[in-house]
C-alpha cells in the first residue's frame, strides 16, 4: 500500500499507531475503489487528527465537518450501489481560504471579508468535487496571499508541523501545514510569486505551480491576475500529477485559461539537459550551504542517471524581485478596489460614501495589504508610472527573453526553492523587505508564466526540510514529473 514517503511530523508523536492519515491521495482512491476502505472512515481519521493536533498547528480557519461528512457518505452510497467512482474518490482536500466553495465562508484571512459566504464554487474546486473529492475545510494564509510566512493572517499564526517554532512559509502556509501534518491527503493553494512552492519547501512536501493558463482562476480571489495560478500541495509527485490532471482545463470563466493535453507518459531523462543558473549559485545569492549541498547531490544523481547538467545564465533575474513587487502591487491595488464595504464582507459606515470606503478599507485591511495597495497606487500614479510600472513591465519582458534563451540550452532548470530552510516565527515580521527576499528563486517563474514544482531534497542539520525547484517551458509539466520520478527511483 502506498504511503507518504516523507518524514513523520513531530505533531504525530505520542499518537496511537494508525495509518489512514498517512495514505497518499492515490492510495486512498485505490483502497476505496477496491472496497477496502470507506470514504467516511478515511475522513473521520483525518477529522480526529485535526481535532487532536490543529490546536497547536493552527492550519485550519474552519473545518467543513457537516458538508465533508455528507459528501463522504454520498461516495460510500455510490460504492454500495455499484456506481462508478471519480478519480479522487474519498480524497480529503483542504482549500486555501481564497478559493470559493458555494455556501461556505471565505475570508482570504482578512477582516474585510468577515461573514462572506461564497455564492458559487471555483472551477478548480468544482472539478475536484466532480471527481468525488471531499473538501475538508478552509486553511490559513497570508491576508489576500500577500506574504511568505502566513504571519500576515488576520486570524491566527500557523506553525510548521516539522518544527513548531518555525514558520510554515506562505502565503499558502495553512494548506502546506495541513498536508504535512496529515490533516488532509492534499490541498489547493495559489501561487503568485512562490506561494505554493515556498511553503511546500518549508514543510517538506510537493508544491506545483502550473503553467499560467493551465488551471482556471475562476473563483480564486484575484491578487495579481497576470501572475496568479492555482496549484496542488501533496505528499508525493504522483498525487501532484493526479490533482493536476483533474483541475487543468479550459474554462469559459477564465479567458486566460486554455486546453492543453497533459502527457501522462514519463520522458526518458537520458540526455535531458538540466540547466543550472549561475546567478542562483553565486556567493551573492545568500544560499545556505546545506541547501546548495542538497542541490549538488541532486545534480550528481541526475547526471548518474544520464541527464546532462549545463550551466545557464539568467542575467536579468536580479531585477525580478523589484519588477515582481511593483507589478504585483499595481495589480493588487486595482483588484482590491472591489472591497468597498457595500457589496460584501464587513463594512464600516461613514457619514458619506467616500468615508464609508476609507473607513471600511482602513480598518478592514491588515498592514501588509495596505502597504502593497499604497505601493501599487504610488507606482501607477501620475509622474511615477514610467519610472516604476512601465520599467517593471519592460524588465519582465527581458526576464522572459532570458528564459527563452535558457530553454534553448536546457530542457529543465534546477534551483533551490528558497535560499534558506524555514525561518523562525517572528524573525522577519518587522522587515517587509527581508520577508520579500525569501521568494527570490520562485518569483521569476511567475513573471515568465512557466511550469514549476518544489519537491523535497533532504533536510539540514536541524532536521528542517530543503526544497528543490524544477522549472520547465509552459505546458511541459510532464518533464517535471519525469525528472522527479528518476530522482526518487534512486532513493
Amino acid at each position, binding site marked *: 500500500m502506498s504511503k507518504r514517503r516523507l518524514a513523520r511530523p513531530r505533531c504525530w508523536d505520542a499518537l496511537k499507531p494508525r495509518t489512514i492519515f498517512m495514505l497518499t491521495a492515490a492510495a486512498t482512491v485505490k483502497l476505496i475503489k477496491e472496497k477496502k476502505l470507506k470514504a467516511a472512515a478515511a475522513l473521520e481519521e483525518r477529522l480526529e487528527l485535526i481535532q487532536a493536533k490543529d490546536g497547536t498547528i493552527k492550519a485550519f480557519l474552519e473545518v467543513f465537518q457537516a458538508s465533508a461528512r455528507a459528501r463522504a457518505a454520498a461516495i460510500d452510497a455510490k460504492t454500495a450501489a455499484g456506481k462508478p467512482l471519480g478519480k479522487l474518490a474519498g480524497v480529503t482536500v483542504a482549500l486555501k481560504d481564497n478559493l470559493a466553495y458555494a455556501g461556505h465562508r471565505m475570508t482570504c484571512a482578512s477582516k474585510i471579508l468577515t461573514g462572506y459566504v461564497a*455564492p458559487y464554487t471555483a472551477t478548480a474546486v468544482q472539478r475536484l468535487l466532480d471527481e468525488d473529492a471531499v473538501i475538508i475545510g478552509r486553511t490559513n494564509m497570508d491576508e489576500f496571499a500577500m506574504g511568505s510566512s502566513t504571519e500576515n493572517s488576520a486570524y491566527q499564526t500557523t506553525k510548521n508541523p516539522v518544527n513548531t517554532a518555525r514558520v510554515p512559509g506562505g502565503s499558502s502556509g495553512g494548506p502546506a501545514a495541513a498536508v504535512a501534518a496529515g490533516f488532509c491527503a492534499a490541498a489547493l493553494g495559489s501561487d503568485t510569486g512562490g506561494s505554493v512552492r515556498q511553503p511546500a519547501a518549508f514543510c517538506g512536501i510537493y508544491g506545483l505551480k502550473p503553467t499560467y493558463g493551465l488551471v482556471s482562476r475562476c473563483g480564486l480571489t484575484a491578487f495579481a491576475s497576470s501572475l496568479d495560478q492555482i496549484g496542488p500541495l501533496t505528499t508525493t509527485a504522483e498525487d501532484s500529477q493526479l490533482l493536476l490532471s483533474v483541475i487543468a482545463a479550459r474554462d469559459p470563466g477564465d479567458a486566460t485559461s486554455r486546453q492543453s493535453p497533459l502527457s501522462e507518459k514519463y520522458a526518458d531523462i537520458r540526455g535531458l539537459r538540466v540547466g543550472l543558473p549561475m546567478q542562483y549559485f553565486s556567493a551573492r545569492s545568500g544560499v545556505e550551504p546545506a541547501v546548495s549541498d542538497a542541490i549538488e547531490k541532486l545534480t550528481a544523481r541526475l547526471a548518474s542517471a544520464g541527464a546532462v547538467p549545463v550551466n545557464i545564465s539568467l542575467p536579468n533575474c536580479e531585477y525580478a524581485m523589484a519588477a515582481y513587487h511593483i507589478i504585483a502591487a499595481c495589480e493588487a491595488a486595482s483588484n482590491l478596489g472591489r472591497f468597498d464595504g457595500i457589496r460584501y*464582507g464587513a463594512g464600516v459606515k461613514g457619514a458619506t460614501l467616500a468615508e464609508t470606503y476609507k473607513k471600511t478599507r482602513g480598518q478592514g485591511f491588515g498592514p501588509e495589504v495596505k502597504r502593497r495597495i499604497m*505601493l501599487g497606487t504610488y507606482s501607477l500614479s501620475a509622474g511615477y508610472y514610467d519610472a516604476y510600472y512601465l520599467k517593471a513591465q519592460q524588465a519582465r519582458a527581458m526576464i522572459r527573453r532570458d528564459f527563452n534563451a535558457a530553454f534553448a540550452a536546457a530542457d529543465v532548470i534546477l534551483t533551490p526553492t528558497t535560499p534558506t530552510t524555514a525561518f523562525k516565527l517572528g524573525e522577519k515580521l518587522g522587515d517587509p523587505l527581508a520577508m520579500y527576499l525569501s521568494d527570490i528563486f520562485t518569483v521569476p517563474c511567475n513573471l515568465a508564466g512557466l511550469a514549476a514544482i518544489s519537491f523535497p531534497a533532504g533536510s539540514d542539520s536541524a532536521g528542517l526540510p530543503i526544497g528543490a525547484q524544477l522549472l520547465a517551458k509552459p505546458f511541459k509539466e510532464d518533464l517535471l514529473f519525469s525528472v522527479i520520478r528518476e530522482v526518487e527511483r534512486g532513493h
Partner: protein
Amino acid sequence: MDITTAEVERIAELARLELTPEEKTLYRGQLGHILSWAGRINAADIKAAPFAAPAAEPAPALREDAPAISGQGQAILQNARERELDFIKVQKVIE
C-alpha cells in the same frame, strides 16, 4: 528615497484608505525604503524590450457575450451589508 507625509496622505486618498497618524509615519518610512530598493529596476538594460505583453500568450480567448441566468442572485444579495427588497442599498453617490 524620501517620501513625505503629504505624499503618503495623497496616496492613501487615491487608494481610499483611512490611515491613523501612526500608520502614516510607519508607511512613510517603509514605502521610502521599499521604493529605494525597487528603484534598482532603473539599472536594468531594457533597450531591447518592447512594452511588455501580459503573461497570457496567446491572447485570451473570450467567450461569447450571451445573456444567461447565474442563479446566484439571492446568494450574492445575502452578502450585502444593507439591502432593501432585492437591491443592495448604497449611500448617496453624488453629493
